[in-house]
């Protein structure tokens, strides 16, 4: 009974932080809320026995990617979002929220039907989700070629980012 309580606690904080991300006027507030959300999701991963994914979440997401975001926000020295005329805000927000609401109804009706009483299988908590198991799957299983493709993708993204952001090549 200890694990579900912790899960609900971290999930609640993650959802609140997510709401702050999309509703804050100040990009820095958004970015820091997103870091909080990522940390809470990392805790959720630990509770779901995904230890390696949790570590990568903190290192790559909350660490590297969010540092990049905050660096760019501070580099551009962005002020708060520029206010727009009220009619414009409500029209845009209404359409956006209506689409998101429809999406939400779709997702939640899909949730209800089959998985409400799915039983959690007995997993071997000592080995499941560890770096050994993930690594064996990644390098010894069917995922070796996708892994190499991802490395090529990262190289292309690196070169692309430099080409885009550099003034003169």
């Amino acid at each position: 009974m200890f694990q579900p309580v912790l899960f609900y606690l971290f999930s609640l904080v993650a959802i609140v932080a997510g709401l702050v991300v999309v509703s804050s006027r100040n990009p820095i507030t958004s970015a820091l809320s997103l870091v909080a959300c990522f940390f809470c999701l990392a805790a959720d991963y630990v509770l779901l026995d995904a230890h390696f994914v949790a570590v990568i979440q903190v290192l790559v997401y909350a660490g590297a990617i969010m540092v990049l975001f905050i660096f760019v926000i501070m580099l551009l020295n962005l002020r708060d979002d520029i206010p727009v005329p009220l009619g414009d805000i409500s029209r845009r927000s209404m359409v956006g929220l209506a689409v998101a609401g429809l999406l939400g109804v779709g997702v939640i009706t899909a949730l209800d039907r089959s998985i409400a009483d799915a039983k959690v299988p007995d997993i071997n908590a000592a080995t499941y989700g560890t770096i050994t198991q993930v690594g064996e799957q990644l390098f010894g299983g069917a995922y070796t070629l996708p892994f190499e493709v991802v490395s090529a993708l990262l190289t292309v993204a690196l070169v692309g980012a430099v080409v885009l952001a550099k003034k003169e090549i």
Partner: protein
Amino acid sequence: MESVGLLPVLAVSATLFITGAAGVLTRRNALIVFMSVELMLNAVNLAFVAFSRQANTIDGHVFAIFVMAVAAAEAAVGLALVILLFRNRVTVSLDDLNLMKG
């Protein structure tokens, strides 16, 4: 030890995904739109991990790691685009980008 079931995890994942989608559809600041996309990717990762545990396989974890790599690539290129945009137009508002009449 009792652990949390599949439904609550998927509910959290769906909530985060919809929050991110609402952010993408309603905000005008390009950086906040990017952050909302990251939120959606994380929601999907949570669902991957939950299904992976439910099926007692490790494939979902591998997919989550791939999603993170793709998110890193997307953030790098996207933020380079934002910097380029800011240098040329001195704005990050998506409403000001109407060159292609989209």
